[in-house]
């Protein structure tokens, strides 16, 4: 789909880029415009709540992944290692600290403003806590924890939900103090409505991958398409984006085209991508006509495809449920079952696990998942290892060998079956 053939072709990528550029510019001007800045994580981000106070939102993970895509993460990681960070810890943390050490110039060359509030939305990953503790040390600003209990029992309990609601309510005075803006219930409702609408549209895009051929790659494309719902949720432009992006998807369905010219294999992908080698990784799979019809990574910032929507009629409770159900906060048995069910729902032929060495939150347990997919459910599963930020861990030749061997044998098995 290189040359422009259709009306909406490329809009999903392009419009997204425009919105992110505008967002980074707004961030650069935040201090001059007298706006306060909150740092938070993508999983469990309480964007709607913070927008009530007109905070500008910075997501250090998004900066890190953008640096990865732009191939600056390697140098930034080394900067962090220079001040004592081990080569074995989370690459995102080191990327972020490295960026801070270099004057906090973000991936697109604009300056990222210093935080006025660090809100650690602890949503599964314990490294989040260590990361923001380090930022609190270096920036010397207040750190507040939003303590989101892990989904340890496989379901939401009232106790956990109420706990988050109470924390949010207690956070109001601090946010008012920092920004000078009063809490406004109607504003919260308005943001929640925008979110729910955008979520509806996004889910339609995700579900479109059930078509054959799939009009959408739920991993390699989703990472672009999901950016607005992660960083701009609660704003009207976010909803507008999904309205436009969905047009592109419908158009593809209408013309029977998809991201892979000749879809041969449908897979479910687990784990974050290797950002510094994103293209190379995609090419390795494209070579075999692989389309990712579902992925877990596209759910780290919210799990909407099984029905959850931000609900303005009970905003606090709904935000709590949103935090609890993000993919990073789901326990291992839930994650395993989710991937298995995706394979079924989206008629996938295999599961591919991209295991990220420095992200133990995702990777510990993936080998065990693989065992189960193969033994219990007879789903062919490939596990490959590299990293999401650290380019040193990407061994192209080795990855190619493993990927080729896997898809070759898959192809062979199919031929034998037919």
């Amino acid at each position, binding site marked *: 789909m290189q040359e422009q053939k259709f009306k909406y072709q490329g809009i999903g990528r392009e419009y997204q880029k425009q919105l992110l550029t505008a967002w980074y510019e707004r961030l650069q001007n935040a201090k001059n415009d007298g706006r306060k800045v909150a740092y938070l994580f993508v999983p469990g981000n309480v964007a709607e709540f913070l927008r009530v106070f007109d905070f500008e939102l910075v997501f250090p993970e998004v900066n890190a992944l953008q640096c990865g895509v732009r191939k600056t993460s390697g140098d930034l990681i080394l900067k962090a290692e220079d001040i004592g960070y081990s080569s074995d810890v989370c690459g995102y943390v080191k990327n972020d600290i490295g960026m801070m050490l270099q004057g906090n110039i973000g991936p697109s060359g604009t300056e990222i403003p210093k935080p006025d509030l660090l809100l650690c939305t602890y949503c599964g990953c314990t490294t989040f806590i260590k990361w923001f503790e380090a930022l609190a040390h270096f920036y010397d600003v207040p750190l507040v924890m939003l303590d989101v*209990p892990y989904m340890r029992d496989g379901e939401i309990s009232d106790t956990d939900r109420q706990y988050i609601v109470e924390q949010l309510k207690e956070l109001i005075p601090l946010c008012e103090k920092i920004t000078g803006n009063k809490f406004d219930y109607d504003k919260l409702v308005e943001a929640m409505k925008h979110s729910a609408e955008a979520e509806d549209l996004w889910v339609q895009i995700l579900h479109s991958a059930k078509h054959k051929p799939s009009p959408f790659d739920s991993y390699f494309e989703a990472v672009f398409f999901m950016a607005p719902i992660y960083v701009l949720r609660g704003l009207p432009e976010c909803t507008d984006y999904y309205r436009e992006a969905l047009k592109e998807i419908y158009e593809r369905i209408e013309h029977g085209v998809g991201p892979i010219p000749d879809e041969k294999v449908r897979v479910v992908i687990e784990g974050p991508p290797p950002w510094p080698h994103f293209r190379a990784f995609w090419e390795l799979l494209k070579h075999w006509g692989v389309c990712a019809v579902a992925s877990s990574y596209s759910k780290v910032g919210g799990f909407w495809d099984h029905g959850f929507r931000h609900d303005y009629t009970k905003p606090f409770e709904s935000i709590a449920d949103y935090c609890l159900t993000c993919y990073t906060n789901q326990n291992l048995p839930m994650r395993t079952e989710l991937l298995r069910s995706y394979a079924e729902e989206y008629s996938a032929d295999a599961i591919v696990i991209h295991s990220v060495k420095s992200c133990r939150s995702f990777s510990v347990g993936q080998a065990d998942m693989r065992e189960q997919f193969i033994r219990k459910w007879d789903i062919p599963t490939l596990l490959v290892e590299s990293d999401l930020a650290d380019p040193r861990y990407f061994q192209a030749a080795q990855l190619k060998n493993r990927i080729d061997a896997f898809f070759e044998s898959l192809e062979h098995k199919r031929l034998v079956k037919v």
Partner: protein
Amino acid sequence: MEKQMTFEEKIEHYRTIIDDVSYPTVNKWKEEHPNKKVVGMFPVYTPYELPHAAGMLPVGVFGAGGKIEIDHADSRIQSFVCSIARSTLELGLTERLKNFDALYFTSICDVARNLSGIWQTNFPQQLVEYIHFPQNMNNSSAPKHYRAELQKLVSNLEQLSGKKITNEDLLNSIKTFNRNRELCLQLYHIKSTTPHLLSTFEAYIVLRLGTLLPVEEHSQLLEGIIPQIHQRKRTARDFVRVMIEGSFCEQPPLELMQVIEDAGCYIVDDDLLLHSRWFNEAVPLNGDPLLSLAESYINRSRYSSVRHYGNKSRKEQFLEKIKSGKVDGVLFCAPKFCEPALLDYVVLKDELEKHNISYMTFEYEEKMGVFESIRMQVETFVESVLFFS
């Protein structure tokens, strides 16, 4: 027999017990109490009081300390993960934990968290708990939430044992563990005030044994050895007073402690087996016992890299500990791949640099066999501290 043994003989004897990965003390207890349950406790801090109140034996599970080969766990946990997680799973897969009826993991890190998930899948016959500790210490509903978490554990234990756990049972357990903590702290007091009388190597063995015995038995044993330690005839040396930071979960090889001490250090404080003295005050015995435990976690815990702090940051508490322990230098001694320790290291050493306090750093693994280079590094460190002070 125990009574007539010298302190040194006891240490030698205890060491054979803690080195035995077949859990001899647990097997013996199980033989004597065939109808009672054993609960494994993964570090760092776990509420031992609860299984105790249920009449069960809580037992520390600290991996295999390099004593077994990792053959089966490799297919389930990849190689870039700390040894304690891998070897604990290996213990399970090789049926060395078959006498355990339940296992507790807590929200210390992503590895322990996911290990609890792997456990649920692979050992469905065991009760697996993943305890969520509060992370927002300043939130007024944190004690209530953690109390509910404890209540859930209690209910599950009741189901497991078929016996109701009363408030009286809980208060009795709290009291019993308060006493044990007090005795463990006495060892730390000796290490700090008269470090020549008790090495960390020895103190560690005594405390580690405590993770394998019924708590009453361990307290009795401590009551017996503390006077023995005081009576030891050993001369104080001109050693450097150091503190170990970072060894709170996976435990360093015993040889490593010996090497550090042999190189001219008194390890006057550390974060080894931190659960044995987790609270810096006794858990109150008046009022609702579960709420007392919950409030104690929030207000009376020692700092650690795996517990988010409240009003006082970790680095402040770290510096206070250095000051009150009259520590000359800090040894950052962390397990390879241990994210909480390795990430905290940067912040903590920054504080040391600001305050001109010496430190050195190294990583360990369970399977580590050669300590020579560390010995040399520590010797150089000791010389530099002596020279500059």
